[in-house]
Structures are given as C-alpha cells and as structure tokens.
C-alpha cells in the first residue's frame, strides 16, 4: 500500500517539477533578431521588429530556389515602448521573444532627442539582453535599415553585428558597443558616450526585395559609417573616418588597423599594418589645473611600399617609423580637437581626473564639459615601432622604376 502511495506521489511530483506554468511553446514565440526604434506620427514611438523566419533559414540548399526571405518585418506604434511592443500582437501571430535580439537600432531623430526611454526598458526587462549591440541609423530611420535584405548573412541583424565587430578590430573606425556597455556612460559627467552608425545607400525600395540579394552587387548596401558623439543621452554630432579612428586609438579599442604614411612628396607611400596597439591615459592636477597625457604603444610592419627607400637598412626604417609616429599623433590630436570643439569628453579624461584628485573633480564636474574640457591641455605621446617588412626587404621594383 505504501509503495503504491509513494508511486502516486512520485508521479504527481514529476508533473509539478516539470515547471510547465510558464511554458512557451517554440511554435508560439516569434524570435526577434533586431529591434528598431523611430518616431512615428506626433512623436509616438514606432518600433520595427525583425523576426527570424526559421523555416526559410534551414534547408535552403536542398529545396530548389528560395522559399522567401529569412526575416519578416512587422511594425507597431505606441506612446511608450512597452505599448508599442505589445501592440505588435495585433500584427504578429506569435508572442514576441526578445532573448535573442542581437541588435538595437535607433533612428537618428530619436537618438538626437535622447536615449533614456529606450535604455530603461532594455535593462529593466529580464527578457532583453544587455549584450545586444546598439547602433544608430545614420541619416535614415531604423525601419529602412532593418527592412533591407543582406546577401552574405541571411539575417541582416547578424550582418550589422558582425560588421561592427570586425571593422572595430580590423579597421578601427567603428565601435562595437553593447547596451550594457553604453548604460554607465550615458549620464556620466566624466565620460560621454559614443555609438556607431549604420547607413543605407542606393535604392532603398529595392533593398527590401529579393532583388537585393540576388544581384551580385547589392542594390542597397548597408555600411557601418562613423561614430555618433553623445552628450548626456543625446546624439550631437558624427565623427567620421580618421577622426573616428583617433577616438578609438585613445579608447584602446583598436586591435589592428592600417596606417598610410607620406614619404617626401609622395602621398600615402607606405602602408603599415598595426598589429598591436595599447593606449594609456594618465592625469594629474597641478595648481588647480588638470593635465592629461595620452600614451600610445603600437607595433606593426610595412605591408606595402610604393616608393623607393632602402628598407634593408635599419636607420631608414627608423625614419619611416618616426613618420608613422607623427601620423598617429596627428590623427589623435585631430580627434581630441574635434571632441573639444563639440564640448563632449568622449575619452573619459574627466574620469581619470576624478580618480587622481577627487576634491578638484567635485569642484569642476558640473562645468567640465562646457568650460574645462574644451581648453584642456592634452599631451600625446606615441611610441610606435615598425618591426618588420614581411617577405621583401628593399622595394626593388621601384628601384628599377626610378631608373627609367
């Protein structure tokens, strides 16, 4: 009798322990790869959801031809973000599932008005991950970018995420920033936020269609482009190209990049691959005056030489090395000037100052970005080394060309 009773209890408990109360069936959830946020009518939020269409991802090789795009876009509008997200239930046959959202795309207009609303809901909601990448849709709306199909990656959200990841570490003009990393800087007085931008070029209408992925050259390519500079939670301006890279040099985001160095009257005569780079910012306060020193250590090799110089000699190499140091220094100084012009301390110099002299920092923190930072003296020290010239020592081809 006891045995049977035990068995009965065992079965009952097994049912309880399965934890079915909160179950969500796989067929009932819509997995969202990217969320876009724009303004709709009357400054209401317009959210764009990029749903993964699992049926169209798997088994493409076997089935003849494409059965349809790997993603589906739905949009919804609401006065706040939660309302907009839930209103999507009217369009979507499934429960919205945010745990796999990799990209949070924000329209430029919204970014210029402030990100606070967006960040609060994304860190409060246990479903949404702080590891999602945050990107700003430059000169366009998030909606347009998310609607675009991409050829190499079936899910455009992955393309955006990966592009930023690789271009940050291999090129250095973009920033791969997650929501979690952005939050601490958004209201810090000592450090302003920077977020990468994405642009859509070409034919925006064609981008939404299969044609975009079926032509060899995408009709509407998506590019990472520039770094958005924030002040508080508002986007104020864009740093592009070399200026953006200068910011990354200081923020220690660069793992590898390429530098072009002028030689005599030839522009960009040497192409140098930087393989190692490390930056260190130190601060001190003397007589109530802050000083910042930026120290860069970089190491690389000559990968391209478009002029003649006897690179087999060490002293010649040192000359190129000095030119490289000057070039890096100029780049960094330019971006510091740029940030100073826009009165936004994106480098976190204030943070360094607050660590070395808290009393001084307490006095200036409210006027730091407006008054102190724009006139701050920053010393830039670059310690770059050219270690090797790879397979060829002397650029002998140019030697002969020069003889002509």
């Amino acid at each position, binding site marked *: 009798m006891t045995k049977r009773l035990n068995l009965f209890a065992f079965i009952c408990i097994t049912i309880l322990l399965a934890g079915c*109360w*909160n179950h969500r069936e796989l067929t009932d959830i819509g997995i969202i790869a990217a969320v876009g946020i724009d303004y709709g009518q009357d400054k209401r939020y317009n959210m764009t959801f990029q749903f993964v269409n699992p049926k169209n991802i798997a088994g493409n090789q076997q089935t003849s031809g494409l059965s349809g795009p790997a993603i589906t876009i739905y949009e919804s509008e609401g006065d706040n973000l939660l309302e907009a997200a839930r209103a999507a239930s009217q369009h979507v046959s499934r429960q919205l599932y945010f745990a796999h959202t990799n990209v949070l795309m924000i329209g430029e207009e919204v970014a210029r008005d402030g990100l606070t609303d967006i960040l609060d809901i994304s860190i409060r909601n*246990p479903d949404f991950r*702080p590891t999602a990448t945050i990107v700003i849709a430059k000169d366009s709306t998030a909606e347009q970018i998310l609607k675009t199909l991409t050829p190499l990656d079936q899910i455009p959200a992955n393309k955006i995420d990966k592009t930023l990841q690789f271009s940050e570490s291999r090129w250095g003009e973009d920033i791969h920033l*997650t929501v*979690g990393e952005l939050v*601490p800087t958004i209201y810090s007085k000592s450090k302003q936020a920077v977020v990468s931008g994405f642009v859509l070029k070409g034919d925006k209408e064609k981008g939404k269609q299969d044609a975009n992925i079926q032509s060899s050259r995408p009709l509407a390519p998506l590019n990472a482009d520039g770094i958005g500079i924030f002040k508080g939670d508002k986007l104020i301006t864009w740093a592009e190209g070399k200026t953006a890279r200068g910011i990354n040099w200081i923020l220690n985001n660069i793992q590898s990049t390429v530098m072009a160095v002028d030689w005599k009257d030839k522009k960009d005569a040497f192409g140098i691959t930087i393989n190692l780079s490390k930056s260190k910012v130190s601060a001190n306060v003397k007589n109530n005056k802050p000083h910042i020193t930026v120290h860069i250590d970089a190491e690389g090799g000559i990968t391209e030489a478009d002029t003649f110089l006897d690179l087999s000699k060490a002293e010649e190499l040192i000359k190129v090395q000095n030119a490289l140091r000057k070039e890096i220094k100029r780049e960094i100084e330019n971006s510091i000037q740029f940030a100073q012009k826009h009165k936004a301390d994106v480098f976190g110099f204030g943070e360094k100052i607050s*660590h070395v002299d808290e009393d001084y920092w307490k006095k200036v923190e409210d006027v730091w970005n407006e008054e102190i930072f724009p006139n701050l003296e920053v010393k830039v020290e670059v310690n770059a080394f050219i270690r090797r010239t790879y397979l060829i020592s002397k650029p002998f081809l140019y030697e002969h060309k020069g003889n002509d």
Partner: protein
Amino acid sequence: MENAKLSSYQFFVMILLFEMGTSLVISLGSNAKQNTWFSILLGSLIGILFYHVNYKIYTYYPNELPSSYSKKIVGKFLGSILGYFYIIYFTYICARVTRDFGELLVAVAYTQTPLFIVNAIMIILCVFAVKKGIEVIARTAEINFALMYLFAITGLILILVSGLIELENLKPVLRNNWGTILRVVILETAFVPFGEMIAFTYLFPYLNYSKNGRFLGSFAILLSGINLSITAAINVAVLSVPLFENTQFPLLSTIQYISIGNFIERLDIFFIFAAFIGAFFKIVIFFYVAVIATTDLFHLKDHKKIVYPFGLIVLFLSQTIASNYQEHINEGLKFVPPHIHIPFQIGIPVILLVIAFLKNRKKEKNMSKTMKEG
C-alpha cells in the same frame, strides 16, 4: 532535540551555504558603492565576533540548546519568554528569506507564475527536509556545496575570459567615505548575513567534536565573507557603480553580460541555480531551528508533528509581510536590522553571556572554596 550527529565538514559546509545563501544574489550592502567588497569583509569580521559571543555561552552549558540554557541563566519564566521570542524571530526571518527567493524567481524567470506557487513549492521541499532531520539536510549540503562551487568557479572563469572586468570601476578605493562604509557595515552587512549565524547556536549540540566549533565557525564565516566580497567586487567591476546600485539582482546582471564568441551566453541558469541552492539552505536551516526550538521549549517528544503547521505559518507569513517587493526589501534593509536584528543577534546574547559569566565565576569560586575546605 533529535538524536543526530554532524561531522565537522558538514557543519562547515552548512555555514558556508547558509551565509552565501540569498546574500549572493541580492544587492548586499550596495550603498557603499565601489567599496561594497570592503564593507562585506568588515561585516564578516564583526560576524565572527558575534559568533564567539554565542559560542562562549555554549561552552558554559555544553550540549544544551539556547532555549534550555536561557532558562538556567535568567530563570525559568524569563528564559521561557526569551525562547518563545526566538521562535517567532526565526519563523519571521524564514518567511522573509522565502519571500526574497520567491520575488526573485517571479521577477527573473517565472513572470507569469503567482508568487504563492513558487513559495509553496519551496516550503513543501523544506517541510520534507526538516521532517527527515538535520542529518539529511547536512548530507544534502555536502552535495550541493560541491555543485555550488563548481558553478561559481566556472562562472568566474567565464567572466574573466569574456574580458568584462573593468578595474577602473572599483576606483577610488576606500577614500573619503569611511562614514558610508561604516554605516553600511553597522546597519546592513554585519547583521545580514553574518549576524544570522545566531541560528547555528541551535545546531552546536549536534557537532560530534564540539571543540572544533569555535574554529570551524570562524573560518566558515570568514571564507563566506571573502566569497561574497569577491562577488561584490566583480559585480561592481562589470556593471559600474550606478548600475550596481540600482539593479535588483547584481549577480544576474553580471551573468547576463557574459558573451564568449556569440556562443556561450545567456547563462541565467547559473544565477537561478545559485539562488536556488542558497535560498533552500537558508530557509531550511531557519525552519529547522524554529521547529527544534519549539520542540525543546514545550518539551514535545517529536519534532515531526509540528513541521506541517510551521510550514503553513511560514508560507502564510511570506505572502503577507509586504504588499510589494519594494516594501519588503525596504523593511529588510531599514526596519529589521536596527529594531529586530540588533536585539536578537547581539543584544540578548551579550546580556546572557555577561550573566552566565558572573554566575559561573561564582560557582567556580564556591567549588574551589569547598575543595580547599575539604
């Protein structure tokens, strides 16, 4: 009191799991900002002091529960009243921890499930464990201890590997705000979790080599203090101060940041696991102590008979002590420590120790006197 024995190792792991319990997952002492790690460490040292006070009383009355020896120290009437209040205290704290745990699961994982169900399942588990007795609880602790450390070490490695730790966030270290640090230590960390060791005074008699108790307890408290302190430091280093202060469950936020190669991520289960093990031992030990104190005070033959009623009381209390999470947590941080923890965790034990010391000195004198005369 049941007839059972605990080995030194079992005693040790029970203290560790009990101390880390829910403190690992809630934002413990986060008012001290980047110096939270230090306030936890300091709290653990004070906790050791509290522990020694309790242990000293126990050495005067070996193999007896506080509910019995308090009668010997302050007389039968007052002693019984004290014992009775301690039962209420343990039941209340048990309900508080149950609520902590339930709120956490509902906020994090079971958003559609009523709090009552989550709490009820935990209490059913505890009722079962307490019915089986302290030896079973101790053996469960041994197994779970290994699991907990396995998870903790894996988690630590993953956090280190994913390069999330920004030591800059811990700066400036211990500068200018000693006032805040000490306030946090005195009002929060010294009492929760370290002062809660008062529950273990009811487990001293089970220890098979009771001489080890003093060293074991101190060492376990110190080690759990170090563990909690490291966790707090990592949380601050990963989350930065503003987020650390405002997040409800810092450890969860930290774990959510882990992402290695876009592959090893979404490890929330680590957190749920730690929360589950820790909360279970904390609840079950308070529960057991409340039950055993009642058995001893009212001279019941068997503790098993009152386990179910106690389970219902704890479950009912855990539902009714607060109407929302904020009220619950504010009570726990602002009201409970000065008004309830201070008298029960340190006030009464110190008074008892002083009286016990004076009484026993007299006794010893009398003894030596009679010896001389004889």
